[in-house]
């Protein structure tokens, strides 16, 4: 149920935030490797989502809109902040104890995915890290399902054949 008027539009936004914030925050974190940056990106996307749409109920697919916007912001961030994404630097970060496990997992996932070209790494990240089905990945990336599947296969194959990574487990 969506409402008209600015105050009601704010209520709509609050509902959307409550529904998506955890998934989107995690989605952003496993791309930028920072709680602060992930929070900033997600907040900014919600802010723009509110301002760019006079009626939130007119947005064709809120989920796709938000994921796509955050993915684009993360890609921009990764492109412009390469130094901050240096895994050794992230290892050295003083993070609160309760966040430590997430940073460690980010580093180990990144170590694997950085063996791959970006377009294959992103498909694997979406599938495994974000638990997204191929159909949703295809829609998000604006690719055919077949292209998604083939990039996925190439990625998996490359990881399996990498001597450096032979001990890792790649259950599909």
């Amino acid at each position, binding site marked *: 149920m969506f409402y008209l008027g*600015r105050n009601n539009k*704010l209520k709509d*936004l*609050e509902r959307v*935030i*409550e529904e998506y*914030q*955890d*998934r*989107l*925050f*995690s989605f952003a*974190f*496993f791309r930028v490797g920072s*709680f*602060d*940056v992930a*929070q*900033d990106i*997600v*907040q900014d996307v*919600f*802010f723009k989502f*509110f*301002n760019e749409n006079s009626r939130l109920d007119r947005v064709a697919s809120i989920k796709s809109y938000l994921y796509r916007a955050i993915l684009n912001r993360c890609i921009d961030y990764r492109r412009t902040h390469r130094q901050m994404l240096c895994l050794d630097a992230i290892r050295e970060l003083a993070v609160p104890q309760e*966040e430590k*496990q*997430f940073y460690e*997992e980010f580093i*180990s*996932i990144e170590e*694997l*995915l950085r063996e791959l070209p970006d377009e294959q790494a992103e498909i*694997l*990240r979406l599938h*495994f*890290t974000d*638990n997204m089905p191929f159909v949703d990945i295809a829609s998000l990336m604006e690719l055919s399902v077949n292209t998604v599947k083939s990039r996925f296969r190439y990625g998996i194959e490359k990881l399996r054949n990498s001597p450096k990574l032979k001990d*890792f*487990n*790649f*259950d*599909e």
Partner: protein
Amino acid sequence: MNNLTPSRLPVAPDSLKTNVINRLNLQQTMKKRTLIRRISISAAAVVVAVVAIIIPVSLATNAVAQSKQIISSAIEKMADVDNYTVSFKLRAEPNENFASINANVDFVNGRFSRSFGTVPYWKIEKQGGRTAIFNGDSVYMWISDQPLGFSFNSSTQYGVLETFSALLEPQMLLESQLLALSGDNAVAAIEKTDSQIFLTVDAEAVGDFKNDYMLNASIGESYNRRTYVFDKASKLLNSFKVEVIIEGKYITVLQSEQISYNQPIDWAVALQRPAIQWRNASEEFSSNVLSKLSAAQAVTEILRALSLSDIAATQNAFYYYDAKQVESKFFGLKILAVGAAFTSGDYAGQFVPCRVKLKNGEIFETNLAIRNDNDNGVWLIDGGVSL
């Protein structure tokens, strides 16, 4: 389970939703983020011209002559005035510099008093906010509830008063209008009633608005209409009103409530200063590591120093702020983004967009006002920090 699937997913911080809603509410109530400029004048400034750029309007020759006559009479009459006090209301944040306006906020009451005696005292105050006095020797400016005030040498009076410097020398204001009436194009509209004469002048926004951040941030930086009402018998200024024109709408931002002439003023009381720390605003700054940087680089360095809680590195840059307040709010921040510097309006410095995360988790986004128009080009934070 595989090595690409996290064992647990992080959840969004509690502050995420609040930050978005707060930011949207802030956007709604203040379409343009207000800028608290501490000093607002150049340390080297001597006199700021107050003459508006007048928009010509067609006016019959006899009306021009009448206008000239009215203004000339008013100038003559002002010579008999020993002192005067103007009570006014202004749409502005009380703490902001005197030029600042905000068409989206309620009026704040203010008062300006001026003596034309041997020692030319004056005082201006915005209720609950900024006050400035001139004791015949120096200018002092302070903000209510702030622990730090500033002293200036007497040559900076006009700079401190900004828009209100027009009230410092009313003859000058009137003469500027008279001058404007002397060209080929008439510049004002005039109306008369039995007891009053209305003089209306339209003025263009002054400054560079390729980036319109500062458009409508002050009367001078707005398209505005100034209406002066003279008493027909005494020829003295009775009242005035300034409207700014935003999206075709006339919004009153400054209005006199009462102008009283030659009423006794107890200057010993009026010129009292609060017992706070005073700092000389005309200080000369030695070159430092920031001097050779661009505005954005300087802001990045200053933010980095704040993130490292480096008191020594931030002291100079925050000369116009209380060190404890700066420390309490900004030390330990995390830099999220620093944007490209820009100029806007008639501000002598530059604005640098930046977004930081404060140690309390709040995301603070602002356009930091930074200026280096001092002898050694030292960058000083001048506004946008909301302290």
